[in-house]
């Protein structure tokens, strides 16, 4: 496998038939589980303090897709979340805005209205999220609904059943169809790595999504455990780095679910920095799918500025 010397042309070639796509994906170099986890553990021991920490906290806040994906979501809840997105810390206007607010399609219009003029994107999950188990026609319509309501970003799920049974062509075609239906919206492809289980699968699914036109690859829906882990994100970052070497294109990465503390977020930033490189330390190319992470980042930020930890009630719930 020589990802480094295959250019855009030869990559277009690998998607020309199901058989070629399959051979390409199965020909990707393997991922050694022990080695990948050991590397992630080493990156976790980087010590980020003082100026570096201050920079990292603000960067992490600016990368958050502030998310609510509950059946009980209401316009009121979304409005509250949007207010928080615009001004995460009412007591400190220097705290940066988050990158986007992520909601179900029927709440996109509400969010869009609330965030007007703020520069904050509205992201919407679509394609029969979170299971993805419906017909392509419905997934396309779901996507079109979200975009028509004003979504700037669409988070789609892949058909894990098709992927695990080796029908890579089907997964590819579906992503490509959603890519088209999403129009100008940014497309994030959720791999649901907790269901793919092996790192080899994660690497293959990453390449598959990128070849099919993903702007972002995302770990999880947040509805399946395990959600994002550092080693999985590491493998995905290696994939976008290699894809960039091969094509010159920058694809983003979004770990989602289970990242709750500033300490964890900083580990992810270190991993981005040392794997894909500093180019990826940008909300355009790296996002956190999280809701409870924000308050811990704000708390650590206040601690750095004032020297003491405020209590949790000093920050808004949403």
């Amino acid at each position, binding site marked *: *496998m*020589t*990802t*480094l*010397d295959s250019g855009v042309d030869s990559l277009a070639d690998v998607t020309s038939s199901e058989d070629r796509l399959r051979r390409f994906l199965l020909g990707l*170099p*393997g*991922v*050694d589980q*022990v*080695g*990948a986890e*050991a*590397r992630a553990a080493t990156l976790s*021991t*980087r*010590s*980020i*303090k*003082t*100026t*570096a*920490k201050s*920079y*990292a906290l603000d*960067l992490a806040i600016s990368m958050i897709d502030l998310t609510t994906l509950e059946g009980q979501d209401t316009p009121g809840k979304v409005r509250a979340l949007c207010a928080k997105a615009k001004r995460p810390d009412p007591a400190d206007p220097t705290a940066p805005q988050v990158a986007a607010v992520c909601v179900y399609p029927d709440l996109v219009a509400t969010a869009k209205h609330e965030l007007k003029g703020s520069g904050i994107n509205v992201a919407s999950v679509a394609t029969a999220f979170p299971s993805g188990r419906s017909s392509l026609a419905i997934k396309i319509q779901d996507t079109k609904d979200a975009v028509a309501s004003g979504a700037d970003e669409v988070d789609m799920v892949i058909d894990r059943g098709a992927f695990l049974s080796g029908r890579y062509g089907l997964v590819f075609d579906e992503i490509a169809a959603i890519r088209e239906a999403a129009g100008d919206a940014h497309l994030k492809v959720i791999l649901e790595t907790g269901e793919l289980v092996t790192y080899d699968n994660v690497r293959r699914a990453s390449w598959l999504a990128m070849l099919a036109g993903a702007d972002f690859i995302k770990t999880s829906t947040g509805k399946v455990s395990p959600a994002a882990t550092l080693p999985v994100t590491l*493998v995905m970052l*290696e994939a976008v780095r290699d894809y960039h070497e091969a094509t010159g294109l920058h694809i983003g990465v979004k770990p989602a679910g289970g990242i709750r503390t500033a300490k964890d977020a900083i580990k992810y*930033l270190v991993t981005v*920095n*040392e794997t894909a490189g*500093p180019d990826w*330390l940008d909300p355009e190319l790296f996002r956190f799918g999280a809701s409870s992470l924000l308050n811990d980042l704000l708390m650590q930020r206040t601690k750095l500025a004032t020297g003491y930890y405020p209590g949790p009630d000093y920050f808004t719930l949403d």
Partner: protein
Amino acid sequence: MSRFEYAPAPESRAIVDIKSSYGLFINGQFTDAGDGKPFKTVSPASEEVLAEVSEAGPADVDKAVRAARKAFDKVWGPMAGRDRAKYLFRIARLIQERARELAVLESLDNGKPIRESRDVDIPLVAAHFFYYAGWADKLEYAGVGDDPQPWGVAGQVIPWNFPMLMLAWKIAPALAAGNTVVLKPAETTPLTALAFAEICQQADLPPGVVNIVTGAGRTGQALVEHPDVNKVAFTGSTAVGRAIAKSVAGTDKAVTLELGGKAANIVFEDAPIDQTIEGIVNGIFFNQGHVCCAGSRLLVQESVYDEVLARLKRRMATLRVGDPLDKNTDIGAINSAAQLAKIRELSQIGEDEGAERWSPECELPANGFWFPPTVFTGVSQAHRIAREEIFGPVLSVLTFRTPAEAVEKANNTPFGLSAGIWTDKGSRILWMANQLRAGVVWANTFNRFDPTSPFGGYKESGYGREGGRHGLEAYLAH
């Protein structure tokens, strides 16, 4: 700040209390001074003098050996194994309690990054004492006969690359088997051994069971040649090992030698590529390459050579070289001016012989002894840098086409301490491991150590094994 640059994160030195001068540790006490000329130990990262250390002359060595003999005859030899175990467990726990202090002291004296002394060296030191403590009352099950007996007094000489870990490799099995020891740490890194002497006092270890004599080659020679030493254990250079083998030849001393290496790290085209790059980096840049089993010869299958090289260079550019006490440092200081000179000389020879040298851009501190991570390409078996141990962060890259050729090249060396295989194919790992003349063969990993796993070499890499059940055997007469 507009970029994510890691701010310095130095570990505090306050936890370490270094005395201005140290005596020898004989019969449970620190003596005033040796009869040799005191010498200074410096921090290789700054050249700052850390302490003055005594040099043990032949009379001091004799005193230490006599103390060890008396302790062996009167206390330690007759003691039940389960009681020896109690002392070893106590030492292991004290090492854990003082882990941070020992890690800082090791990084100060040796120049290795605190990340390694904290996460690798000291935890392994404690693990060795725990492991051999468990053996002390089970010697008859070690597979060396019904009633194995200790040799008596062990004279042990250890190197500067893993000062505390090598001490543990030597002292833990020796004491578990019922021997008493006189240990000489390397002259550039004596401080953790002296801290260990304090730990022996704290553990109420009977006087004379462990004796530490500091000094250089002359002290080591006096110890090895002392007529009342029953067992000699040495880790260090092949040249000194050869001299020791000569000096003990014809005596009834038992001897084990752990000497140099020039390990082949073999990468096949189907290797898990990103983990392989990590393994190559860990194989040669761990502890600045001051590792006898370092993967200093990279053998890459020609079909993936370009890709491996490109990825390796990209990864090397992210290595952080600098202050060993900074928690974010990946590569610390070269241990001594002499070692730095040797690395420079051999690297120059590599260039002169036509190999291509590459290092990432990295700023090295003004003071202290530093060498950037370096890779040589276009190296062939005939180059000196492919044959001689450099003992520094210098990697030579060679290529091969078939598994048989890889084996041939890997074995075509006077050494045989370790080797690494990188492939997704399990059957090839087993086939290769059987062909390679190396004491340790790692598969899809490198430089992993564990107290339960024996370690030792073929050919000029020495003889005998340390670690595991085999490591006990070296300290038992049977």
